[in-house]
């Protein structure tokens, strides 16, 4: 094996390890792990099961909100949420039918939402404006219409 090949392979291995270290550091120290909530729910009884029997937005602290939301073809419940700038929003999500995706453009919110499973993701909204919420997993004929907004004032 040539010296330059050894150097190349050493750098390759090093690059992979650096990616590993950063991913681990962000997940553990900065609490930026990917959405991985593990609670389950009966997918056919979402409307009767707390907290999804009362979907909506609720203030839970200073500048802190909880949004309980269901996704179903081809809408979100509740739609058109409003929060003040600087607030942190904790989303609790589940699907009433097929697999959906929950994405908010211009933020890092991106999570799969599946029937039978409860997914959680949080985001701090600093910049005022209107944000597009969309479903990013194909869910049927009206998938392209499945969107709503979050207004930050």
């Amino acid at each position, binding site marked *: *094996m*040539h010296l330059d*090949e050894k150097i*190349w*392979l050493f750098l*390759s*291995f090093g*690059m*992979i390890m650096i*990616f*590993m270290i*950063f*991913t*681990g550091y*962000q*997940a553990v120290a900065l609490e*930026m*792990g*990917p*959405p*991985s*909530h*593990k609670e*389950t*729910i*009966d*997918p*056919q009884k979402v409307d009767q099961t707390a907290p999804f029997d009362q979907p909506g937005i609720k203030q839970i602290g200073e500048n802190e909100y909880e949004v309980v939301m269901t996704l179903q*073809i081809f809408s979100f419940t509740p739609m058109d949420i409003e929060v003040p700038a600087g607030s942190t929003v904790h989303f609790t999500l589940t699907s009433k*039918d*097929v*697999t959906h*995706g929950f*994405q908010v*453009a*211009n933020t*890092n919110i*991106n*999570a*799969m*939402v*599946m*029937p*039978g*499973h*409860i*997914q959680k993701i949080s985001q701090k909204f600093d910049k005022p404006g209107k944000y*597009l919420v*969309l*479903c*990013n*997993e*194909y*869910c*049927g*004929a009206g*998938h*392209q*219409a499945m*969107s709503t907004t979050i207004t930050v004032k």
Partner: protein
Amino acid sequence: MQTALKSTSIKQKTNQALGVNLEDARISKSYLAVAFIAVLLGGLLGLVQGLNRAGVLTLPAWANYYQVLTAHGLLLVVVFSAFFTIGYFYAGLSHTLGGLLPKVRKIAWVGFWTKIVGFVLVVIPVLMNEASVMYTFYPPMAAHPMFYFGLVLIVLGVWALSVGAFIQVANWRKNHKGQHLPIMAFFATGVFILLVGATAFVAVEVLFLIIPWVLGWTDGINVMLSRTLFWAFGHTAVNIWYLTAVSAWYVVIPKIIGGHRWSDLLTRMVVIPLVIMNITGGFHHQIVDPAISEGIKYMHVFMSLAIGFPSLMTAYALFRVFERTARQKGGTGLIGWFKKMPWGDVRFLSPFIAMVAFIPAGAGGIVQSTNQLDQVVHNTMWIVGHFHLTLGMSVVMTFFGISYWLIPYLSKRVLTPNMNKVGVIQAIIWTAGMVIMAISMHIAGLFGSPRRTSFTTYGDFAEQLGWNPLMAAVGIGATLLLIAVILQVYAVFNMMFFAPKGETEFPIAEEEPGAAKTPYWTERWGVWVVLMLLVISMAYVIPIVDMIVNAPPGSPPFKTW
């Protein structure tokens, strides 16, 4: 043993002297013909989607965007790639192992027709809009049962072909004790092992979870489990097509440029880890899923990134071979040797562009396998851009390059200078189309544009977020690609039936003179398969047991399109 050795090596020599065995050629030609018809149809549907997303084309009522997208994905990822891979490796096995055994030939035909019947069963419900469920067919979306029966037959066909390849290889090894499997057959062995491993997962999903459920024998389906089983297959499948392309990069391209191949030992040491570690990569499609703990997801970052290492070895090896060959031909300077490469030869040009494309493609793959970065691009157009680079360029352009010698070799015809010119033009148009399309898709994805979504403005958000001009560029790319597809399919069928008669060689590069002998442990396939199973168990046993034990009540079937 000495005489047995001699007689087979005579057989191999006659095989190489007389050119291809006609019966074996018929098998490979049939597979390749199906592959390129699939490219034509898939490309046409790709244009329809590109123009729709560009906002130029409104689809008629009888063709829904998602139906078109399902067909596009299946035709290109399942039909084209699989049929090409099988046709190519069966030709390689026939050429390097002294002709296919009669029973292997029979198995190849049984596999062919099983796959074709399976494919027809899949296509009928897709055409009837009864199966617009995409390449991933995630439950609880439920297609017509015929769709799943078709998938089962396709998998059975793949298994038949794999068994055929194993019989051929085992027979050669029995008659050549102590010898190394020829390198092309070595790659083929790895590919067929992975095909069996990957399809086993999807077979379990379809046979034990989906079919009883769509037939109404079970009430609900485990959504997470089926999705996880799918990705153990879905990701490995595309890596198998990539490994097929890699085989040509190591074995064929050095011969075409008039050089020797890279160290035999290191080549085999790229194949072995790709076989052992590949199937576990599927989990990185589930980084933002619920029901998988962060710890498991972190372990899978490592398992996915580890697959990158053999590819980085490959990058070094190939450019080293190019440099060495060009310098032997009188190339000089730090990069001046580049001028000595056969740029006008499509058999080199197309795969070369494919390799270059793998640099950004592989880098993007590493980026999106890490948890936080994946969260930014998951299910956006970025991913679509990524696999149009990896599959649409690295794999497909290599396959196209192969077709310019493989098809004349099989049909006992030659590649004429004019046809070579068609190929070069084809490669340039294809490259332009893919580059425009893939770059626009990557950027649109970073801005949040979702994948698998027909034309939509989301109010005025699409305009405001800057997606529209990028989507228009995707439409332009798709148009160029269809032009290139038509040229390619024309070239393939011309070389199969009309090109001037003559002999074309199956180009397999020799080792460097005086190269060190490869140690025999590389041939221990039994050990590699056991290691592969261990790695798979390490990756899958804990999460799958968790998904079964802690499963929510199952979901009923839905038809939402």
